[in-house]
């Protein structure tokens, strides 16, 4: 797939706007130039022109972007912070943004939900019937909602007759309760019962391992950058430390 699906080539101003928008932190002109060089070289053809963009041109595009944003009154502006640029909302809109962000959509869980979650957490991977055995009531509805809330997930099918689903907790469960690993839950040794057959298999499929794998790949990708970019990298230096995008898998 060397061809791009894009018909119209974007202006520098658009590119700079998109870069600032998607970046997690303020961008220096060099960082932006690097992205243009990489894309220009990577796509070749008409894209090569972007690899030739100068610092001055990029700075000009930033100024244009800033002017256009001011003129259009979109609630956004470009700010220069410590020699780097970022998009930010207009101060006048600040109170509204604060009102939006202050209210953290907190999840309040009911007692039955918490009990069900606890059973899943300690006994995972476990069957619906196992949960019902402990709680003594049907957990169908509760379980479904916990799945909807992404606190519980279907792990896989069991090997029992009828191949019922096995349930487990999610990454979001850990985040919501501020737990590092399931093993950190109190009394987990005692409450967890050994699953001779299923247990082994699952441990190879935990997320940390997958993240490690993904991390390793990223390392390789970085190593493949060409010289000019490597030079730019050096100049950018400290910035890149914050660049890692954590693979978000749940």
């Amino acid at each position, binding site marked *: 797939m060397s061809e791009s699906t894009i018909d119209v080539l974007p202006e520098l101003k658009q590119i700079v706007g998109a870069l600032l928008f*998607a*970046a997690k932190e303020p961008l220096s002109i060099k960082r932006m130039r690097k992205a243009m060089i990489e894309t220009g070289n990577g796509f070749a053809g008409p894209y090569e022109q972007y690899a030739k963009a100068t610092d001055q041109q990029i700075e000009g595009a930033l100024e244009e972007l800033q002017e256009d944003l001011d003129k259009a009154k979109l609630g956004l502006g470009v700010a220069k912070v410590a020699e780097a640029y970022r998009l930010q909302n207009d101060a006048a809109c600040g109170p509204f943004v604060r009102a939006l962000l202050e209210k953290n959509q907190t999840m309040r869980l009911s007692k039955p939900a918490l009990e069900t979650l606890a059973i899943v957490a300690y006994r995972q991977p476990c069957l619906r019937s196992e949960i019902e055995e402990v709680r003594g009531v049907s957990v169908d509805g509760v379980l479904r909602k916990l799945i909807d809330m992404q606190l519980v997930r279907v792990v896989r099918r069991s090997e029992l007759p009828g191949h019922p689903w096995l349930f487990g907790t999610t990454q979001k469960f850990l985040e919501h309760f501020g737990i590092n690993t399931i093993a950190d839950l109190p009394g987990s040794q005692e409450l967890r019962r050994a699953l001779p057959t299923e247990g082994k298999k699952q441990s190879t499929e935990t997320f940390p391992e997958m993240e490690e794998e*993904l991390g390793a790949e990223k390392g390789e990708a970085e190593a493949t950058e060409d010289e000019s970019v490597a030079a730019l990298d050096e100049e950018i230096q400290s910035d890149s430390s914050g660049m890692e995008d954590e693979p978000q898998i749940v």
Partner: protein
Amino acid sequence: MNNQMELIKDDYKVILEVFEGPLDLLLYLIKKDEVDIYDIPIGRVTDQYMEYLKLMKVLDLNIAGDFIVMSATLMLIKSRMLLPVEERPDMTDEEEEDPRWDLVRQLVEYKKFKDAADHLEDLELHMENVFGRESEHVELGAPPDVDLRDASIFDLISSLNEALGRVQEEDLQEIFAEEYTVSQKVTYIVENLKIAKRLSITDLFTGMNSRQEIICTFLAVLELIKLNRIAAVQDDQFGDIVVEAREPEKNEIEAPEEALVVKGELL
């Protein structure tokens, strides 16, 4: 032929999960021969279907029982088609009771969903270039599994079928005389790809006069695909399939633009 199968199985076992089903194969054959889906030449399609199925068995692909069920269905339809119209059971309306009708209906419906899936694929491609604030991007995680870009398993089998068709049936003595192995062919392909970068499958089979050699070579291709060492690419539909080495080789570093362009496939 049976002995030949055994030989290969013992030698090397490639188990490639075939997620495509019998309907995919039928649609593939229909499209390849450019026949009308509403008027399928059932005899010819059935023969071709059986041929592919046989090859898939020889290759020890992990095919589902659904393939066997479909072959039975095809045979049944074929036999019903041979009956004079008045002798067909449960006949009321000629149009309605064409023995092929249920299958056609199923194929047409499946085709619609395949088109819907193509649309989703276009959307996915578009969304690849779209990021929300702070690079919020829907991440699916998991590294690529098997890279069968554009070329389906049926395309691969089709190329094998053609290669085998060019070779004379050989007698058994000849088969046992020659000792080709899959691992030998794996090495052969890897070495060749170091020089050529891209190899067409047809070229790969050129000069091979033994069915066993061709099948070993083909299994080697499958194995390398499975190991993620090569990718099978097809530029035109039903065009020649090309295999090329995949990234991770350490000596590939000078081409960062490739990395931008190489995509993995999930599942």
